[in-house]
């Protein structure tokens, strides 16, 4: 190939890419545009894929039933690989194309977009459950559809305090090295532990680590009886297997992102007895909210077993926003960020099919649900261990 041909070929590729910049096919204004970013290839892809499938599944399900008040959902989504820059690009692109709400994902990108969301007035749900994102004073257009990490952590700590035999309960929080990892402790966890007389120590799980022997050596030395994970299922499973082979005798807790089927799949026997603060029920739990998903998946010929509770979470997070939009349309209103926000703030004990505690939003509180069920791994599946528990204050 001559130099010129190469150059022309390269230029051609660039032009093709640029030419498509305007976006996909033409869609009538009748449809409701919803922007979404999923992590299908990045570090949180292990749970991000199911979450994204859940969001897409719900859109498909609603559209097959005639849409929201007769208007179909046009879900525009892309993978962003957990990169802040990509999230910003896609957010700008989708909002520019008329997305009225946005389904976000990680803590890093949600934090980075927080100011722009407020400015653009785009109701935003993220799968990041950082406490601060539920405070309208700081993030007026962010809505949390599940118990925040710090609420989950305090629920776990409360359970420990109530069920610990004698002496001081010693708890180790093993967390992902990120804002996501630290948020349970930072936002009330430490204070709560102090108030309840729990000895709490934080241990960072370095990114990409495949061995936590050193951390467990320190944990063993501290005499901890409980280890709580704030990480995704991959690293948590590694740690569980590690602990098993070291013969560590402690009770393990998983917060949101490792209380799922993957952790059992990856850790096998080592996951037995693992407790999980799981805001969203897995599909194996029989409630109306999981039944509708099972029926949908079966009608599509997809396996139900392969889906984790991240699928439920994606589905029902979107469903709650869809309900907000339905209320706007049912009242004859115009779908704008402000009107959807106002409609969401009318949610009072709104039931998401029993998959999570009922959701309440007010203009001063965007933390939708404050309770959850604690689950426990029994014979290789997550089984409900307690009823819905309200998160204690601090």
């Amino acid at each position, binding site marked *: *190939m*001559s*130099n*010129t041909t*190469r*150059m022309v070929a*390269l230029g051609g590729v*660039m032009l*093709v*890419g*640029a030419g*498509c*910049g305007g*976006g*996909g*096919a033409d869609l009538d204004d009748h449809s409701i545009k919803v922007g979404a970013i999923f992590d*299908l*290839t990045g570090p949180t892809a292990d749970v991000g894929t199911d979450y994204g499938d859940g969001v897409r599944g719900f859109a498909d399900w609603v559209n097959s039933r005639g849409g929201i008040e007769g208007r179909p959902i046009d879900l*525009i989504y*892309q*993978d962003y*690989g957990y990169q*802040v*820059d*990509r999230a*910003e*690009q*896609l957010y*700008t*692109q989708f*909002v*520019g194309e008329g997305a009225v709400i946005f389904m976000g994902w990680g803590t*890093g990108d949600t*934090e*980075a977009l*927080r*100011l722009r969301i407020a400015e653009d007035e785009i109701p935003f749900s993220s799968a990041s459950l950082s406490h601060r994102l539920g405070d309208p004073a700081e993030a007026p257009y962010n809505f949390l559809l599940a118990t925040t990490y710090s609420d989950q952590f305090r629920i776990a700590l409360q359970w420990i305090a109530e069920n610990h035999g004698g002496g001081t309960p010693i708890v180790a929080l093993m967390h992902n*090295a*990120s*804002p996501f*990892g*630290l948020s349970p402790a*930072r936002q009330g966890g430490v204070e709560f532990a102090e108030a309840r007389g729990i000895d709490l120590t934080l241990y960072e799980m370095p990114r990409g680590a495949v061995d936590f022997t050193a951390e467990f050596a320190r944990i063993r030395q501290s005499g901890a009886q409980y280890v709580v994970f704030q990480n995704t299922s991959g690293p948590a499973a590694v740690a569980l297997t590690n602990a098993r082979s070291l013969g560590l005798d402690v009770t393990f807790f998983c917060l949101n992102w490792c209380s799922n089927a993957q952790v059992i799949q990856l850790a096998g026997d080592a996951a037995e007895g693992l407790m999980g603060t799981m805001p969203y029920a897995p599909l194996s739990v029989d409630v109306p909210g999981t039944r509708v998903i099972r029926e949908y998946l079966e009608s599509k010929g997809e396996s139900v077993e392969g889906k984790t509770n991240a699928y439920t979470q994606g589905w029902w997070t979107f469903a709650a926003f869809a309900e907000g939009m339905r209320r706007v349309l049912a009242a004859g209103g115009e779908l704008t960020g402000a009107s959807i926000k106002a409609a969401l703030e009318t949610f009072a004990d709104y039931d998401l099919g029993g998959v999570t505690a009922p959701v309440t939003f007010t203009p001063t509180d965007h933390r939708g649900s404050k309770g959850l069920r604690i689950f426990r791994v029994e014979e290789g599946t997550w089984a409900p261990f307690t009823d819905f528990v309200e998160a204690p204050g601090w």
Partner: protein
Amino acid sequence: MSLDCGVFHTRYEADMGLRPRPLQRLRLGILALFVLVFPFVASPYWLDLANQVAIATVGAIGLNILVGYTGQISLGQGAFMAIGAYTAGLLTLNFGVPWGASVFAACLVTAAAGTFFGLPSLRLKGLYLAIATLAAQEIVEWGMTNWTAVTGGTEAIVLPAPVLFGVRMNTNFNFYWLAVLTAAGTALFAANLMRSRIGRAFEAVRDQDIAASVIGVDVFRTKLLAFATSSFFVGLAGAMIAFHRNIITWERFTLSTSIVFLAMIIVGGLGSIRGSFLGAALITLLPAMITNVGRAIQDTAPQAASLLPYAQQAVFGIVIILFLIFEPRGLSKLWENAKDYFHVWPFAYRRGESRAG
């Protein structure tokens, strides 16, 4: 500057010009016109991309001064950008320093940090230096996330919006002018720097450091100067990111940022200002283009579209490999080739033909 065949200068000023020929000026004029008109016709999405490209250009030129011109490999780009971003942000947030002044201070602080982390270059070369700068990256990353009292740890830092003459500068449209001016200024400075004694010393150190010291270049001092100059602009890029987004998160400045910037200058062209821009543009726009292709074929070929996110990672690598094989001097050289081709068009010299004839 090389002497061009058929171009005669009658004045020293003309000889010294960066763009002495009419055609070059015409091209520059067209580019300037495009840059001026662009923000008025572009959608917010394209403006946002343009701003990212402009910031990346500043950072890539900075890195190119060190890697392309002086031959000192650095994996610490993300760290230096972080130092720039955090310095600018924290000065404005905690001490109320006007944002313009804190951006400048950030450049100086990053230059100082760059010089410090450049010290190992006295004894280390090539791969060993790369590892030393990798250490810098790790140290700064650790500092960002753990020095909670200063950086706020892993929490994002929210900054006040930059205001100039009562106008908010961080909207995409307003920031565009700042970003373009900064990028153009950086390019002009770097282009002139490379024609100065210092710039020549940089290149001499890159090409053969022993020979350079024989002809009187203080090699260590020159290397440190390259680290300082480079870091100055890298810090500038970091500070620009901070004020563009008004929010600083450490996740933007990880090792992968360093790698992405190295990819930019490799694809664009090592030791080329134009290449820094072209590389920054390509690497920034490539994922966006792949996304757009994915969305365009989502309806017609959903299977292919669902695979595209995974292909994206591969495409990134493939582009770099292809450039290393077919055109190690990058996009910049491709552009030169195109110019050369049209320069003599339609009487192109074709390899092999003269022999056959």
